C-alpha cells in the first residue's frame, strides 16, 4: 500500500510490533535493551529492536528525540516506524542519527497500519508485506 506521508525516507524491513497505546521513548524504553519499561504500558517488556514499529501518536517527554537517536546508534532502535499522525520529535531523532552515524530509520505516516507479528517492509512511499 502507499503511505500517506514519508517523513524520513528509506528502506527497512522487520517483524511488525503494533503498539496498543502511545509510548514515550524517554522514560518508557530502555536504551540498552530496546525494551519497553513503562510499567503502565500494556506491552511493557516487549523489545522494539529491529522491529517495524507501528505507533499511535507519540506521548510525553521532549527528550524522546535523544533517546531514539541513541537507540539507533547502539542498535537497539526500531528498523522503521509507521505512525498514524506526523510526530516531529521522532523525525528529528531519526534524522540526527542518520546524519551522525549513517543509519537510517525510515518514518512514514499510514492510515492503516500493518498487523503485529507479520513481516513488512517500508520502501520509500510503499509499505509492503514480506511474509
Amino acid at each position, binding site marked *: 500500500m502507499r503511505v500517506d506521508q514519508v*517523513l524520513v525516507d528509506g528502506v527497512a524491513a522487520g517483524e511488525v510490533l503494533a503498539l496498543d497505546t*502511545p509510548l514515550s521513548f*524517554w*522514560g*518508557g524504553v530502555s*536504551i540498552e535493551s530496546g525494551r519497553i*519499561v*513503562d*510499567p*503502565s504500558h500494556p506491552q511493557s517488556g516487549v523489545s522494539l529492536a529491529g522491529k517495524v514499529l507501528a505507533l499511535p*501518536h*507519540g*506521548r*510525553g*517527554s*521532549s*527528550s*524522546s*528525540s*535523544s*533517546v531514539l*537517536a*541513541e537507540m*539507533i*546508534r*547502539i542498535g537497539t532502535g526500531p528498523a522503521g516506524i509507521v505512525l498514524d499522525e*506526523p*510526530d*516531529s*520529535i521522532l*523525525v*528529528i*531523532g531519526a*534524522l*540526527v*542519527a542518520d*546524519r*551522525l*552515524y549513517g543509519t537510517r530509520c525510515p518514518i512514514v505516516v499510514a492510515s492503516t497500519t500493518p498487523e503485529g507479528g507479520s513481516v513488512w517492509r517500508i520502501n520509500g512511499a510503499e509499505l509492503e508485506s514480506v511474509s
Partner: protein
Amino acid sequence: MVQLSERDRSLLGGEMGDAQRIAMELLIAVGETDGAQTLIDIEMAHIDGCSYHGQAGVDFAQMLVDGDGRVQVPTTLNVASLDLLHPDLYKGDSAVAESAKRLMEQYVALGCRPTWTCAPYQLQDRPSFGQQIAWGESNAIVFANSVLGARTNRYGDFMDICCALTGRVPYAGLHTDEGRLGTLQFNVVVPSSILDDDLTYPLLGHVLGQLAGSRVPVITGLDERATEDRLKALGAAAASSGAVAMFHAVGVTPEAPSLNEALGNVAPQHVTDLSVDRLRDARRELTTAIGTLGAVSVGTPHMSFDEFVSLAALVEGQRTTVPFYVNTSRDVLDKAESAGVMAPIVAFGVTVVTDTCTYITPIMGDIEGDVMTNSGKWAYYAPANLGVSVVIGSLADCVASAVTGSAVSTGEWS
C-alpha cells in the same frame, strides 16, 4: 513546501557556518512534517537537549560546536544530569558523569545561559504574552503556552537548539491563533474545598493528560485558587501522562476569559465531567505502594520561591526522619537564601538539589522503602526510571510524613 526568506536561504547555503546550515536543514525537515508553509522569528529559546541520554547527544552538540554554532536569541538551559553546585550528591558512574558534564559545556559554548532549570518561567526574563518562542521540556512548554500566553510548539531535543541557532521556527500548531483553540471541554465538578488542596492539581493534570492526549483541553470550574504553582503542577502531570502542550482554564488563564473564547466559538468534540471519584482514581494510579517511607522528593518541576516560603512555614521547628530532597534552580535557591527563607528548611534536614532532578540522575542512592512526592510528574516517571515505589501527597502531606516516618494524608484528600 516551506517558503524560505532570503536570510533562511543564506543560512541553508552555509553562509553563516556549518552549524547554522545543519540547523536550518533540520528545521525545514521538521517544518515539512508539521505542515508549515513558512518560518517565523522567535524571541527566546529553552534547550532540553543538555540532559544526557547517551553519546548521540554529545556527538550532535560537538558537530554544532565544531561548526561554529552560536545561538541567535536569548537561550536558557534545562536541567542537566549533574548538580554542578553539589557534585558530591552524584552516586552514578563516573564515565557517564564526564560525558554529562561535557554535554553541559558544549551547550554553554554555543552561547546558552547556564540556568539549568526545568522551570525557566521562574526566571526574571520570562516570555510575555503573545511572544513567539521555541521551548523544549514538556512542563515548560505547557506552562509557557497556557499560563504565560507565549507561543511554542513541543520542541524536542536537537530541534530546540536548531531553533536557537537560526532564530526561526516552522509556523504551525501552537504558534498560530487557530492552533491554540481548545477542542475538548472538561468540567471540574468537585466540592469547592477540594480546590484549596494542592494535591488536587497534579491529580487533575494526570487525568487531563490521559483523556486529552495531544489535544488542547479547556477546563471549567477552577478559580483564582489555581495559582501559578498549582498550574505548574497540573501542566507537568498532563504533559507526562499525555502530550498536552497547552490547556485553558476558563477565568484563570489568559486566553480563556470565557468558555466560548477558549473554544473559538466552536462546539467541543467532547464534554467530560471530572468528579472527585475520577481524581481519587488518579491518586491511586500515582501511588504504587504504601509501605515503609524511605524518602521524600519534592520540587518537580523545580521548586519556586513561593513554594520555599510555604515549605519553610510547614517545617518550622521540626526535623525529618527520612532523606528529604528538594529540587530547585540555582537562581531560585539564591533568592531563597538571600531572603532568609532557607534557615528552617536547612534545620529540618533537607538536601537541596540544583541544576538537575532526583528522577533523572542517581542522587538518592538505595532507598529502603517508598518515596513520597507532591509531583504527578515525578510519580509518573520514577517507578521506571529509579525502580522505586511512590506515594503521592501534597507538600503538607510530604512534610507530615517525613516527620512521622510513614506516609500520612492531611487536608481535603485525607
